[in-house]
């Protein structure tokens, strides 16, 4: 039994990498993940990754922000201490629109980004789980879980045929740890 934990196919070109994904799928080799230095359009469909639901979260946070500040303004300006400004109605909705808008945007932005960080496990100081250091530079990397995916040489051949410039058989999952 080999000690290989993950097989990495390093590509120089994103199109070759997409080609590699197709070939692996044709040969029923499950792909663990793909690491790239830039977003690759169309890769989600190929890997069958569901659409992000962050838009819904953003919408809900926006509604929360708008209603929070509108309630605060209503409480302070209309309920708690209404001012007599030339006998005009204290519930002056047009005046409340700018700030309601600002907090809608504020909550949308912060809520959505916080959800993104939470769901993706991003936070300051999190130890980076890096499989190959060049994935953030100039290599497009397909990672394959070696366990159960045998024989490893076949996977190497598939990746090589697709145009991988380098294939790594790593004994450790992440290279960024000590």
């Amino acid at each position, binding site marked *: 039994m080999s000690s290989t934990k993950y097989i990495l196919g390093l590509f*120089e070109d*994103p*199109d070759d990498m997409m080609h590699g994904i197709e070939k692996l799928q044709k040969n029923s080799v499950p792909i663990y*993940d*793909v*690491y*790239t*230095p*830039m*977003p*690759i*359009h169309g*890769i*989600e469909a190929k*890997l069958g*990754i569901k659409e*992000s639901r*962050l*838009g819904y979260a*953003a919408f809900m946070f*926006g509604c929360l922000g708008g209603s929070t500040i509108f309630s*605060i303004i209503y409480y*302070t*300006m209309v309920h*708690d*201490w209404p*001012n007599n*400004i030339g006998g005009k109605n204290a519930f*002056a909705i047009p*005046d*409340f629109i*700018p*700030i309601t*808008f*600002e*907090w809608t*945007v*504020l909550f*949308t*932005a*912060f809520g*959505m*980004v916080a959800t*993104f960080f939470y*769901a*993706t496990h*991003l*936070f*300051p*100081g*999190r*130890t*980076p*789980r*890096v499989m190959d250091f*060049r*994935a*953030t*530079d*100039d290599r497009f990397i397909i990672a394959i879980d070696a366990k159960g995916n045998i024989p490893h040489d076949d996977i190497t051949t598939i990746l090589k045929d697709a145009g991988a410039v380098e294939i790594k058989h790593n004994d450790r999952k992440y290279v960024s740890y000590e």
Partner: protein
Amino acid sequence: MASHHESIIREPLITGKNITYAQITNDVLRPVENKPTKAWWIGFIVSSLGACLWVFAASWTFWFGLGEWGLNKTVGWAWDITGFVWWVGIGHAGTLISAVLLLFRQNWRNSINRSAEAMTIFAVICAATYIVAHMGRPWLALYCLPLPNQYGSLWVNFNSPLIWDVFAISTYFSVSLVFWYTGLLPDIATIRDRATGLKQKIYSICSFGWTGSVKTWQRFETVSLILAGISTPLVLSVHTIVSMDFATSLEPGWHTTIFPPYFVAGAIFSGFAMVQTLLLVARKVLALENYITMFHIESMNKIIILTGSIVGVAYITEFFIAWYSGVEYEQYAFINRATGPYWWAYWSMMTCNVISPQLFWVSKWRRSIPFSWVLSIVVNIGMWFERFVIIVTSLHRDYIPSSWAMFYPTWVDVSIFVGSIGVFFTLFLLFIRVLPSVAMGEVKLLLKGASEQAKKKLIDEGHLDPSHVEFYKESLTKFDSVDMSAYEKTI
């Protein structure tokens, strides 16, 4: 798809031969991974001296009070609010480039958005310092917020545009910061993965553990798009609200409905000028000519023509409406601006903002780097005068002639303004030292479709309409970073 070929008649967004993904990383990270150059040190020392001047003058203000400024009972707002509106306006270009141009799918924004966003953030910091300084007692700044207090509670007045401004500016600053930093994460991860030792540890913390997996990028793109979508109305609302600080008053010259669109156009106008001021130098010093090309410079100059013309039309409209309204106070305010004791400020504004951007109709000047650079500074001088004219000329002679007065700045006013420019440049120079000044991931996206080398390959393959190829080669001649000799022999 990364392999998407772009039409040949579009100008390339990345020039140069044999550019690889690795080379983009190397080129962008050169200033971050190496010791600073002499030019950087000179710039940094000069700007930090400016920043020290700011610290001194602001401390002086807090110690002795606002009486140290040149304000008087008639002119209660002068250089401080001028500086505030000027800086906020400059900030707007960053959001315009990163958000509005993203929504319009203008790919040329990819190589300038990062530095423009940084500029936004630093400009808003400078703007905010004026607000805090003008409070006189900045430790009471929290009373801008609707906090429960012992007077009743006596709340802030949500009917006032000044309170709208507190919310607008703070939202604008924090949302811009989040937008900028989220976009920086993949690039910080790139630095992290190439660094060693302490540097790697610091960038590791700052990178939030970014890996670049499929799901991360997918969510990242969603987040960027939605942030762009909400930042677009946000940036418009911010300067609209800034203009309402003036427009909702009864002051002649301020009480006009044209202010919101006019301020927004002016903000974009001055912001793009500041982007030019910074990037024309940065592309040379950081050797980024292949990424920030003549096409980028020319596009920004075209936006300067457009917004400058909108500003010009607004000035003339204002003048016309003052006459047409039949309100004699309004009429006097405008006649006084043009011919009164502040005529020199008015005509500086008119020359710099209305006449000078029209010079960019000449393509030769629009493509000249020294000319564009000088003109970008002229525009910013003009935009400073615009705010000065609006604020001081309206205030110094209003309804009661017995209280008419002039405004004379003291050394504290001047130092705070000059110092804020120092603060701005100090922050910007630190930024280009420690963070990538170009969004690498976004530029890499363009390499296979919109680069000169990709288009050259298409030409060499020879399946294109020859007239299109001719048109394309013609458009390349304006680039200072394209070697035309490679194209001559292929004809």
